[in-house]
């Protein structure tokens, strides 16, 4: 069975179908209709709820916003599911709710409960109340009525005046209840969804259920039943496997557990690869990053995923596991075809190792999409260049959206070696190579010709940004 707190009520579930999302459970079974369905695909945030879980420090509750429409019920195990109906304290609105009222932040009101929940999660962080933190916290919530200005101001107002709330008061009691669940040793299982806590247990489950599929954050898998109406086979989740949840930084490398949510690894990646900041911040939305994992994004091997190009450009190593043996595969050998990888049957990604960069190497990560927030790349381009006395000693690259797999450009990496980085001809050569390197397709996001041109132009941007002196402002966003 699985156990969780629904607001303050302990719930145990055993036989719920995997295809029943948290949202459906709330609306259909618990008559908690505050969470709305706007898209059933994690794109609009009207269904946002907050999950409270034991903070890494073990001293309190950590609150994260998630899209209930694409969250598996089994993922609630050991957590507190907080819904909009639970926020007020008696007849007193929660400060984030009150601020929304005061600032006229709701019009049609359909998106409002989702916004309120994202605001609540931000309220319970120690992030300063700035436009940037508000944009990040609300990046997964769409509003079609207000134009967002009053919502932004409500959030800034509430978060600038944080004070203890009902949840602070109940934290100790909730923590105790969650710890009791965590102390249980049996593998949580709900119907056909298993949540093993070790690699050995994972391997045993895979033996017992040969047709089982892996699941981590479920942000992509859920679309199979919410959008394509498919039924799911047995699922085994990597999210509790302790070997998949480690985060290790040493002199040489940053090694990231494959099953950690992206929002948990973002601070470490920001610290060691600050130039990835924009890409990570623009990877889907915060509620998605609160669920989605690096391992899931890499194993999916989508040609338009944003992290595989990073792995390619940083020459990362993918560490695979089958419960008894680990093996290491360089990123450039991992992707073998359209959504195909070298992963063997009953094998999963345990971790990703990124080598730390030396001071001679410069990294830039670019994402071009129609919308800044929560959009899929038309083109994603990652470049590094290593210079010795102004001469190129190494170049690496990774691209999304230009081929059937995430790719790098070998020709670029070979023909630019030994070139003087300051020379215009170096810029020119890179452009020429990239303009013809791939045969991208026309699709709903961009045309092939646009993709080819911006590949060459992103290279130009890279060249401009890595010269020893500033030659030009190169970006319209604040990240430049």
């Amino acid at each position, binding site marked *: 069975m699985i156990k969780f707190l629904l607001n303050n009520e302990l719930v145990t579930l055993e036989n719920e179908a995997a*295809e029943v999302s948290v949202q459906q459970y709330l*609306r259909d079974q618990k008559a908690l*209709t505050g969470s*709305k*369905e*706007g*898209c*059933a*695909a994690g*794109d*609009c945030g*009207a269904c946002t709820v907050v999950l409270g879980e034991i903070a890494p420090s073990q001293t309190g509750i950590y609150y994260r916003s998630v899209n209930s429409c694409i969250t598996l019920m089994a993922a609630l195990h050991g957590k507190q599911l907080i819904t*909009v*109906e639970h926020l*007020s304290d008696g007849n007193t609105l929660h400060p984030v*709710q009150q601020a929304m*009222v*005061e600032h*006229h932040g*709701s*019009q*049609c*009101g*359909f*998106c*409002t*409960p989702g916004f*309120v929940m994202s605001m609540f999660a931000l309220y319970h962080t120690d992030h300063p109340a700035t*436009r940037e933190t*508000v944009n990040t916290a609300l*990046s997964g*919530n*769409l*509003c*079609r*009525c*207000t*134009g*967002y*200005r009053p919502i*932004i101001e409500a959030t800034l107002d509430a978060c600038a005046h944080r004070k203890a709330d009902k949840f602070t008061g109940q934290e100790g009691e909730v923590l105790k209840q969650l710890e009791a669940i965590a102390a249980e040793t049996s593998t949580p299982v709900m119907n056909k969804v298993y949540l093993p806590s070790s690699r050995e247990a994972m391997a045993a489950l895979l033996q017992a259920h040969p047709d089982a599929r892996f699941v981590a954050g479920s942000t992509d898998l859920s679309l199979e039943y919410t*959008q394509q*109406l498919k039924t799911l086979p047995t699922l085994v989740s990597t999210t509790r496997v302790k070997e998949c949840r480690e985060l290790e930084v040493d002199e040489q490398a940053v090694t990231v557990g494959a099953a950690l949510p992206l929002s948990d690894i973002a601070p470490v990646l920001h610290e060691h690869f600050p130039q990835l900041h924009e890409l990570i911040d623009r990877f889907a939305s915060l509620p998605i990053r609160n669920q989605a994992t690096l391992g899931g994004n890499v194993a999916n091997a989508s040609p338009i995923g944003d992290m595989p190009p990073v792995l390619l450009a940083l020459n990362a190593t993918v560490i695979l596991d089958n419960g008894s043996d680990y093996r290491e595969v360089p990123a450039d050998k991992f992707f073998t075809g359209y959504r195909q990888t070298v992963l063997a049957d009953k094998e999963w990604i345990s971790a990703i190792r990124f080598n730390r960069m030396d001071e001679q190497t410069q990294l830039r990560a670019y994402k*071009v999409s*129609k919308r*800044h*927030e*929560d*959009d899929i790349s038309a083109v994603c381009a990652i470049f590094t260049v290593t210079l010795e006395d102004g001469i190129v000693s190494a170049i690496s690259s990774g691209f999304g959206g230009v081929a059937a797999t995430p790719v790098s450009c070998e020709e670029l990496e070979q023909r630019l070696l030994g070139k003087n980085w300051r020379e215009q001809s170096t810029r020119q050569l890179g452009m020429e190579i990239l303009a013809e390197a791939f045969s991208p397709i026309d699709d*709903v*996001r961009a045309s092939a010709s*646009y993709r080819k*041109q*911006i590949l060459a*132009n992103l290279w130009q941007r890279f060249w401009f940004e890595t010269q020893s002196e500033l030659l*030009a*402002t*190169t*970006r*319209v966003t604040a990240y430049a």
Partner: protein
Amino acid sequence: MRKLVDQPSHKAEHSPLLRSEKHESAIRQVSGSARYVDDIPAPASLCYASVGVTNVASGTLTSLDLSAVKHSPGVIDIITISDIPGHTDIGPVFGGDPILLDNEVKFHGQPVFAVLAETQEQARVAATKATMTFAEAEAILTTHEALAADAKVRPTHEFGRGDVSNTLQTAPLTASGHLSVGGQEHMYLEGQVSLAIPEEEDRMSIFTSSQHPSEVQKLVAEVLDVKLHRVAVDMRRMGGGFGGKESQAAQWACLAAVFALRTRRAVKMRLPRMLDMQATGKRHPFENDYEIAFNETGKMLGAKVTVSGNCGHSPDLSDAIVDRAMFHVDNAYQLGDTHITGHRLKTNIVSHTAFRGFGGPQGLIMAELMMDVVARKTGLDPLSVRKLNLYGEENGTVTPYGMPLEQDILADLIGKLEANSNYWQRREEVKAFNAASPIIKKGLALTPVKFGISFTAKHLNQAGALLHIYTDGSIQVNHGGTEMGQGLHTKIGQIVAHEFGVTLDNIEVTATRTDKVPNTSPTAASSGTDLNGKAAQNACITIKERLAAFFAEQFNVPAEDVIFAAGQVSAGGHHLPFTQLIQNAYMARISLSATGYYRTPKIYYDRETGSGRPFFYFANGAAVSEVSVDTLTGEYTLDKVDILHDVGTSLNPAIDRGQIEGGFIQGMGWLTTEDLRWDDSGRLISNNMATYKIPAIGDTPAHFNVALFDRPNAEDSIYHSKAVGEPPFMLAISVWCAIKDAIASLADYKVDPDLPAPATPEKVLMAINAIQNAGGEQ
């Protein structure tokens, strides 16, 4: 300028009127307790409907095998068009909209059959199981193809004045061009949904998310083949409408009602997002052409403009939509000799429908394009050209359709905005920045909006209200308008509270119901408050007259001296608490219930001559937008926006500001990231929120100044306010013009870039390529 009418001061100390009162549902909305149709507790017998759709865009159905649907788990009933008891055509005005496929395929994604099952998932799964074959026919998918084939849903309409052909031949300067204007998905956060509950015999209750409950009532009655009085429609609130639930909410209510009648069970029909996007119409894409004549000073001498709306497969509301596009081709400018033509083209695409602005934006953008073109050809600043050509004493105030502007305030409004936004200083700063920045280019534009207020279908300009006062003094008001987030119920509450001199907590504005106020118009055309506010006020006045007469009789004072204010009723030094008067009146057998009615005066339009006064008045505004454009990728940001907008006397400044800001950002989405795409088979491929991108929180500019232009409406509208729903949408044209301005900097502002809408980064880069390549050839 015409003298303004004397304005009584409505802002009283204890009255909620003219104040930023909170949205009447705000507390419920933030608490998750505001109830939408899908949140209504399920009746015991509830089951769920879904539809199976075509996978071709044109042709005929040759076979339909529903056996697998029938045997799918949980299936209760299946219907095709032959199972409809009454009317099968649910077209709102002209017909042409079969409720389910009637042999001929109209578009890709058209509902063929409907299925009812025990659960929502079962209904949706079953709907995918039919085997259908079609004899495919050549489809017309674009406006250009429809023009070539002369395929139209309604006849072309034209109007104008003067001999524009001659003017074009003799003018010192001319220009011509074409603009593709994209459509727009409404993306109301709450998708289409209806709940039908069978009542006795063939009577039916409908709960629906619709801007037009009376039309739902009429169509349900017709489809069920019963009289209208047997159908009651209830509409408490929508999770957004924007025009998308004006005519196109009815189909789902009708299908649910047919099942409810057949099975005697409550039926819910809620469209999942992808089906909603495929099967309901959008803002019309337009292909527009212009030829203009002007002189070296930048003065317009003539314009010949053709607007061609892609209406989809049926007329729906397209006749009025293309008319409104035509009525706004001039925007705020005296174009000189003018000829305007509007085509209503028929394609094998979903039937396009109302969307905030109702064709106005697709016409109005042409005026702004023409001003930019004149500016680039003459070397003048675009703002100078705009000001030079404004309607006014010098240029004249009569539109191409013969309507004079009676309250001409735009020159004043633009002047204020120009000063407050430091337009000219910023113009110099932008030029200096661009001179020093090889890759990022800034652009700046100020564009005005003049938008006509009234339904152009004259009969829709009427409204009713029903008002009850209970014996505790609490007041319930019902009116024909619907609440979709715009704050209509809040404003109605303020009006009623003000009239009776009581506080807002004494007023309850109830769900819109066809059995309370009959024969209502859609809540559309920005007219909700203008029409229903007056109707509610008239209901108040009726009861106030009864109460005043009663009070006057009791205290022997003149009835016309009786004042309702601050919870008291007073005259001649006598006071009674409002509640006390109500109780006294009840005991004295005075009726405490009344209806109110309103029709808009002055309006008419003669289609034969193409002239008249289609609008009661105009709402105005202007915006300055500043953008940064990346010439390497075509990406851009909107850095600063300043808006000054005319809402007459604002009934609720916070709500009006919300409409202005929300309309602006929605308009910006239309012109930038919202990119509707159909593939070569006519299938919509931007069919979910992952592939169709409405503005997100980061798209709101950091500098977003909005001010209300403080001048009462010269017409006798409700407390001299002005409609605000649609006009601000078009302020976003300043963003598109600013992007063009940034691109134009690459050619020293001598060329107006060819930039279609939406100006996605890709389209911006194409325009940059074109201007750079042209520069290279010179």
